[in-house]
């Protein structure tokens, strides 16, 4: 079974986010980059599938040289080979076109993305990729069982879950539940050592165009100072929620 996990290189979840002074982009100063948390669930799921069905786990990302440590980390966690599509991602259309072209050249049975990246929160690439490859797609995927050609999936819906079936190949957009938090693999020393000798190949882009554009970024407005209320005066909280905030 050939498994591909699409990886995003994103600021660590604890990062304080700021933008450069003209607002044109993220201020990367002092920011630690990691594998997108949604993709981490996907990577571990990919390794589980390989252990059960045999095959290989490849990882791919669209990015410049600065994303290579993130790909090396994926190799250290257990991926067999890594692929960097050499360029800068601009939007979901361009990213999915580039990754789609890579997949068409290499053919995979299972393509696992994260539901969204925690930086731009687009959530466009997985579905766009499925449509470009004309493959079944399951978003917010929290369960994936493969038996021969047959696939059973569970996706999260608003307030519940839905089970569906289809056939390989498939594209899923995963999240926590695909594997559990405690199952997430982290690199061990042996993994880190072997990652150095695993293949990381660089591919030229096919030159696809972005259709949407980030014009600028700003910080959300600061909250007003908190009003502290005595636990002995809960009537005052109810009054404020009713009269001041008008939410009850």
């Amino acid at each position: 079974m050939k498994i591909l996990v699409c990886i995003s290189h994103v600021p660590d979840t604890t990062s304080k986010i700021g933008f450069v002074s003209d607002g044109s982009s993220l201020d990367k100063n002092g920011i630690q980059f990691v594998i997108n948390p949604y993709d981490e669930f996907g990577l571990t799921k990919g390794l589980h599938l390989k252990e059960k069905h045999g095959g290989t786990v490849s990882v791919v990302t669209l990015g410049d040289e600065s994303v290579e440590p993130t790909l090396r980390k994926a190799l250290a966690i257990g991926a067999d080979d890594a692929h960097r599509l050499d360029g800068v991602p601009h939007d979901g259309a361009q990213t999915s076109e580039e990754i789609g072209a890579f997949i068409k050249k290499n053919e995979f049975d299972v393509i696992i993305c994260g539901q969204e990246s925690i930086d731009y929160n687009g959530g466009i690439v997985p579905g766009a990729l499925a449509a470009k490859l004309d493959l079944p797609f399951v978003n917010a995927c929290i369960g994936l069982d493969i038996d021969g050609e047959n696939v059973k999936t569970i996706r999260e819906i608003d307030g519940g879950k839905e089970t569906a079936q289809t056939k390989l190949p498939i594209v899923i957009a995963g999240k926590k539940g695909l594997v559990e938090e405690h199952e997430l693999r982290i690199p061990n020393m042996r993994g880190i050592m072997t990652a150095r000798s695993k293949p990381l190949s660089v591919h030229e882009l096919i030159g696809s165009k972005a259709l949407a554009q980030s014009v600028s970024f700003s910080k959300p407005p600061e909250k007003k100072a908190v009003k502290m209320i005595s636990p002995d005066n809960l009537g005052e909280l109810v009054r404020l929620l009713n009269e001041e905030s008008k939410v009850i």
Partner: protein
Amino acid sequence: MVIIYAETWNNEFKKTTFEAISYGSKCAQEMGLESIAVVFGNSNVSVGELGKYGVDKIIHVQDIQEFEPYSIALALSSLMKELNGKLLVLNGTANGKSLIGILSSLINAAAISNVTSFPINYEPLTVLRSAFSSKGIEHASSNSDCTILSIVPNALGIKSDDDSSASIVLKKIDPNSKTSILQSEKESGEIPLPEAERVVSAGRGLKGPENWNMITDLAEVLNAGTACSKPVSDIGWRPHSEHVGQTGIQINPELYIAIGISGAIQHLAGVSRSKTIVVINNDPEAPFFKAADYGIVGDAFDVVPRLTETLKSFKK
């Protein structure tokens, strides 16, 4: 033409559907275009109801009744092409999120998700959207003559006028599925979190799942959804579908009450767009107080049941 996906659930419209219709109709007016809502579902759906949210015309597709993303996306994309659609509006519900990527490829349109404003410009179409897990606001614009916007649930309101109505057209489009749905099940409370106007949420401060009754009691009196922090869902006290935060569900209710949650930056990322935040915590140094509108330093086991009683007598 502006096309709006009018999502149904068990042949009924959701509140988020009316938000999308209100949004798309307003955009259409400002663009000088006609607005069309597209409904999938059987003849029991009261499609005419959508007219009061400002839409000009309703297309009802009865051959496609269940939500299979390809079927719906193919039908919407063929309508966009046939009707020369310039803008397609979705709501960012679980189903909307399943559709937007597929649609962006099928229509070859600019796709902008997580939209938190009406267009601030139409040439080119420009909107504000939430990015960096609510830690940033992005001005995003379309470089294409066809755009898909997916709006954040609960963020942009509903506008209705009982005197408006729309014409209804039945359209035959056959389903074209790539997956078959076996079963759907509801797991948490009656109110799906992304569209809940009020949410009561609790963390490890509650000490165990057996203590959740006081949370559901408070939620009930407020007609609120229930949520939890990441550690609580990770140790299995509550289902994953209740986990709000950076890697869980992002919500923006009118009122968010956080009980026994310290307020880690990852939790705030999922809830900071809430309009009013109340924090109840016995640790006066809990970082969540800095992000709150109202704070109470106290023991949840003492404060929460009394707050429920106070709200009950207020409601009377």
